[in-house]
């Protein structure tokens, strides 16, 4: 299953890499351009393959066969064109071998290890909710299931009024990609959705680092990547199977390509790719449709100012191609959108309703500082580099693209003003996700704004031995990081003992109030009868002593049972008493240790909501 899921993603990625390679300005500088081609290839590949799978699912009840034939044909054609283009390329271009400085190497190490830690965080978030968060399963995976399980009737089923609450009008890049992955695998496992979702997060970071590295300095790009990885909401949401991270990727890709296009206005590939990415934003979420229209307007206005009509045509060409599946879906498949179908005309008066403006602005102020779920707010650190005096940093073209983001934010604001839903609920349920969509592009502009184009330092050519040693050192460091993280206890894990043949864990069971701790100790109060589990992964029975300290509220006797046998009993009072349960041989698997007391619980305080406490175990461990 895992191999097939990776194959599904990999084949889409390959097609995207071929497409980007074809449109990328030559002559090819693979090593220098890989930072762009790989992440853009992932997004465009999933965009193209999702559109093909969507079309195949409309035409056939077995879309995977038709889809594979089409994909293979297109990929073969792209590969031929890319090969032909490479042979025809005559220029040599710059060598494109990135320079090296110890500071950049140090930063790259920090970024790589931070990415590893973030990947672990993202993986843990995925395991906690393998089917995704609420919108993940209730919208995106739900629609994917309709496509995958619904056969030739999936469009009719998705149009049924009882499932209107799933927002059946939402575009299908994510659901069709997930359904395609499931078709490769042969079953609708959650792993496919998680893999797809996480890949977009990784691609977003990669694209940001590469883009800033090209437009400014590698070190600034690395810091931008760290800011993104240091946004916990971005990291945990990356595997949460929503469409907001993919949309954020396409927003970033569009503005990056527009900014690159400013540098080389004679190159047609950048505007075509920018148009494609803007269109794929619309194929990802309805908000993306708004962004695509605004992007087209901004691009054409700017091109008209420069007299670059051909660039406008290239952008529109890419945009129109990417909007084809959106148009087919919206015209022939999707039911009406809930915001639009409620009749906007009657709600125009809401545009001048002061209370709505106040509520939106108050929510914005509240959520801007908290949407990232930061432990340490980064804005205070991000502001000083902006105000350090220096020369002109943002070019005019870059300001235009920054304006596009501002317009997108204004568009979101206007939608809130006219929403037919309860405004407070709508804001509470969506504003943080909208901010997350804009965040990667906002970090990109922060990076552009803090450094000057001219500041690229003369880097030395790196010595031959550098890359292998750098790789080995980072792999070693990564192994250390993973080992440390692997030792972090699980929420229900009180203690671990490592024995030959496996690990033995002491786990919380039923009957305890929550775990409490101060700087010196950790403890749990029992509700009266409570259970600990000893889970042994060893193949053979293991003799281990269970040690803890115990105290009670009021004098009482506490007994511990394994099965029907008493393995420990003692009188317990206010004082902490060191205790051990020795002589027990723990078999492989799970063994319950049940603690019982002979006296009822006593209220911990005079409060009417006071807990009735009996006895507490302190710092249990297995030795």
């Amino acid at each position, binding site marked *: 299953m895992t191999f097939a899921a990776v194959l599904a993603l990999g084949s889409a990625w390959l097609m995207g890499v071929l497409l980007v390679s074809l449109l990328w300005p030559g002559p090819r500088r693979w090593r220098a351009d890989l930072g762009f081609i790989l992440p853009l290839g992932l997004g465009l590949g999933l965009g193209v393959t999702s559109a093909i799978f969507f079309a195949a699912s409309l035409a056939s009840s077995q879309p995977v066969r038709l889809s594979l034939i089409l994909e293979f044909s297109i990929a073969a054609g792209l590969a031929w064109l890319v090969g032909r283009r490479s042979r025809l390329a005559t220029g040599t271009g710059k060598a494109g071998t990135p320079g090296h400085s110890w500071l950049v190497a140090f930063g790259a190490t920090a970024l790589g290890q931070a990415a590893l830690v973030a990947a672990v965080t993202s993986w843990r978030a995925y395991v906690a909710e393998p089917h995704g968060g609420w919108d993940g399963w209730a919208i995106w995976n739900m629609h994917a299931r309709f496509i995958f399980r619904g056969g030739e009737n999936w469009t009719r089923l998705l149009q049924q009024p009882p499932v209107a609450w799933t927002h059946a009008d939402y575009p299908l890049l994510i659901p069709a990609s997930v359904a395609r992955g499931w078709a490769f695998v042969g079953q609708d496992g959650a792993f496919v959705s998680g893999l797809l979702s996480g890949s977009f997060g990784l691609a977003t970071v990669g694209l940001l680092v590469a883009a800033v590295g090209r437009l400014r300095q590698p070190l600034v790009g690395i810091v931008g990547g760290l800011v993104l990885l240091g946004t916990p909401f971005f990291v945990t949401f990356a595997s949460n199977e929503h469409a907001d991270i993919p949309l954020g990727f396409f927003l970033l890709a569009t503005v990056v390509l527009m900014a690159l296009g400013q540098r080389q206005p004679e190159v047609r590939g950048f505007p075509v790719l920018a148009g494609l990415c803007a269109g794929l934003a619309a194929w990802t979420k309805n908000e993306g449709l708004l962004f695509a229209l605004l992007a087209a307007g901004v691009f054409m206005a700017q091109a008209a100012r420069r007299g670059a009509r051909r660039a406008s045509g290239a952008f529109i060409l890419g945009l129109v191609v990417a909007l084809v599946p959106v148009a087919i879906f919206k015209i022939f498949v999707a039911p009406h959108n809930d915001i639009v179908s409620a009749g906007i005309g009657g709600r125009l008066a809401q545009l001048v309703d002061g209370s709505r403006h106040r509520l939106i602005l108050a929510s914005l102020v509240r959520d801007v500082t908290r949407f990232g779920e930061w432990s340490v707010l980064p804005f205070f*650190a991000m502001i000083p580099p902006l105000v350090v005096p220096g020369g002109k940093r943002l070019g005019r073209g870059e300001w235009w693209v920054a304006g596009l983001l501002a317009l997108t934010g204004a568009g979101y604001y206007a939608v809130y003003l006219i929403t037919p839903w309860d405004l407070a609920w709508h804001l509470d349920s969506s504003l943080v996700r909208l901010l997350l969509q804009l965040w990667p592009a906002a970090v990109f502009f922060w990076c552009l704004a803090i450094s000057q184009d001219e500041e690229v330092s003369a880097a030395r050519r790196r010595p031959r031995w550098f890359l292998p040693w750098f790789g080995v050192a980072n792999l070693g460091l990564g192994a250390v990081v993973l080992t440390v993280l692997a030792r972090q206890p699980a929420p229900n894990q009180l203690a671990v003992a490592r024995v030959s043949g496996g690990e033995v864990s002491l786990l919380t069971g039923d009957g305890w109030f929550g775990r409490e701790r101060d700087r010196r100790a950790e403890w749990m109060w029992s509700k009266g009868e409570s259970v600990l589990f000893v889970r042994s992964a060893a193949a053979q029975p293991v003799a281990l002593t269970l040690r803890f300290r115990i105290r009670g509220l009021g004098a009482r006797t506490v007994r511990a049972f394994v099965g029907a046998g008493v393995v420990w009993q003692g009188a317990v009072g206010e004082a902490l008493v060191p205790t051990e349960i020795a002589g027990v041989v723990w078999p492989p698997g799970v063994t319950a240790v049940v603690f019982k007391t002979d006296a009822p619980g006593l209220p911990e305080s005079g409060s009417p909501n006071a807990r009735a406490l009996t006895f507490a175990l302190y710092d249990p461990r297995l030795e």
Partner: protein
Amino acid sequence: MRVSNSTWRAGALGVVAIVAIGNVILAVHKTLPPPVDSPVIAVDPVTRQERRLAKLRQSLAARGVEGVVGYLGDSAGPALWSDPGQVEDYYLAQFVLVPLVLEGNSERSEWAVANLRTTAASARVGPDWKIAEDFGDGVFLLRKAKP
């Protein structure tokens, strides 16, 4: 000693990087590893419902039931929508049973699914329906009783 702008900027960038790395480390510290498998381990609500309704789904497929199917929760009509827990149960049942479409108003369907947490089937299932299969844990497949 005069400190240049680029030095200031480099220092400021270093502070941003340190803050970001701090957030990365604190995030992984807060996002705990998955619970170690035990008899009382809590699974996420979606997986729990997937397991709870798995046999119902198999039975519906085996009977060739397609299209729109009725849905009965603990409450009838508008009351179902006023209880977030029941709404979540309904949505989750829909997610598990795709490609069937579950309809709160079950009158036009021959088959219905009863997903009951607190109500006994005898109290909730009216005379129009008979229980075709009881899967335990409040999950029933209902078929319209012949007049």
